[in-house]
């Protein structure tokens, strides 16, 4: 696999100590990890029937990408922290300084959103590859035998194939729904963290938000007293 980004990010890595360049290097590495992960998953999906594992020898591509995205998150935090520290209004305690400090609080959460979204996308593709890997042996075998055989398809064969296809289609849908629910849950949690980070620091504030477990439906425990 060609890797045009490697030399670029390696060059950036040499600028250790510069948070902005570190951030760029991390983002570059994350992008390359994503490409690699997708290529590996594509290889797995088209690999040995049922095995689901025939791509280039390497560790879990999704784990590698998540690790890279975590480094991006850390780099963003560094940039924000250094920017805040370098701000001329730092000592003044002015509204501008407070806004900047709050921005620094939120930066890791925003980076976390990027990590979660990227991970979710890759998990979805991995799930699809697994479903395809589970069913492709039966389906390809059936089509190959039909192409080579002169005898008509029996009723039993047709039923079995229909069942296999229906199961495949159902599982494809289930993968999408499950990944969407996982993503929704994780984004909910980050959303709550964002709300907490921007909450009034004064506990006597009339609009103080009481944080427990967020729930939907008729029994919410997340309440905002009026």
């Amino acid at each position, binding site marked *: 696999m060609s890797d045009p980004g490697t030399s670029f990010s390696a060059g950036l890595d040499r600028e250790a100590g510069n948070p902005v360049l570190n951030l760029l290097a991390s983002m570059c590495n994350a992008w390359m990890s994503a490409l690699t992960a997708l290529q590996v998953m594509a290889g797995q999906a088209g690999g040995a029937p049922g095995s689901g594992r025939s791509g280039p020898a390497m560790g879990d591509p999704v784990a590698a990408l998540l690790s890279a995205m975590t480094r991006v998150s850390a780099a963003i935090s560094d940039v924000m922290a250094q920017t805040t520290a370098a701000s001329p209004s730092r000592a003044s305690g002015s509204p501008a300084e407070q806004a900047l400090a709050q921005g620094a609080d939120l930066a890791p959460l925003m980076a976390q959103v990027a990590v979660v979204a990227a991970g979710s996308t890759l998990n979805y593709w991995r799930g699809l590859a697994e479903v395809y890997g589970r069913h492709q042996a039966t389906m390809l075998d059936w089509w190959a035998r039909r192409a080579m055989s002169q005898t008509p398809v029996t009723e*039993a064969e047709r*039923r079995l194939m229909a*069942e296999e296809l229906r199961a495949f289609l159902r599982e494809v849908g289930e993968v999408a729904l499950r990944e969407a629910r996982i993503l929704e849950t994780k984004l909910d949690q980050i959303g709550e963290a964002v709300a907490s980070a921007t909450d009034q620091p004064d506990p006597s504030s009339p609009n103080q938000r009481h944080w427990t*477990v967020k729930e*939907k*439906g*008729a029994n919410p425990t997340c309440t905002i007293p009026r």
Partner: protein
Amino acid sequence: MYDSAVNEGHSAVIAGLGFASEIDLLRGQIAKWVAESNEEMREALQWQFFGGSKYFRPLTIFSCYRAVHSEPIPPQVMNSAAVVELFHNVSLIIDDIVDKSESRRGRATLHARFGELAALMTSGYVVADGYLQLIGDQHAIELFSELLKRLGVAECMQWRLRRNPLGVEDWRRIAGEDTGSMFEICACLGDRSGRLRRFGALLGLLYHGCDDVADARGAVALGGGGEEDLRDGILTLPAALAIRDPAIARAFCATDPDLQDLPALAAAFAEKLPEAEAYLDQIEDEARTEARLFSANPEPLLALVAETRRLSAR
């Protein structure tokens, strides 16, 4: 003898899942409700509700609550568990009338003992009073309404599709709307967020499949029903696997089956039991994955799945 052995088994399951005191409270709540019911209905209600229940649906509610909350079971959830037991019994009463079943778990069914009119009126009384118990819990009212509608649709669909050469995917859809909807709603009543809805659906599917397999094996632990399904051409999991064979499918689809042919059909279904068990293992895995992905404390859910899976072996 049979009743006491079965009840001991149920108590062991309840204790194993860690809800002995909650189920005692639930029994007390239902007993109080029966004692305060209309005098005209009381004897029938006592017969129906004190015959030895597994309380598997309330246990599902409690387990789902505990999977996402660390506090003790609150009164609102306890109330939902009592009402789900009431509504479950309504479905049993109707099923027994439709199936013309004279006995369930070694006891006369309600209509066999009190007559069809009394059984039908009792089921109506239970539904009406069940909703009264839910006053103040709008979310639960919506969920129970969804449940009753889906159960009605599922029964009609299952009856319309009988004696048809359908497949495992069709079984999955029917079972998902029948038993699946019941456990789906139980999960929602327990977690109160909807995150365990899919887990509940898979648990119901597993329960339904284990019931089918146990029936095909001739087991009586789940209340019987295998003969009725066979006679009526109901699509069970072993049936869906067996009728891939066109000859079996023709016998299964016969509109007026000869009773003498049924043992051969039962034997054909029994041959598919290993395949059915393997399919149930897959559903079990799916349910476990759901539990781990969507609950803070999956242990009660995993125990529930394991207990459900054991039902096919009884």
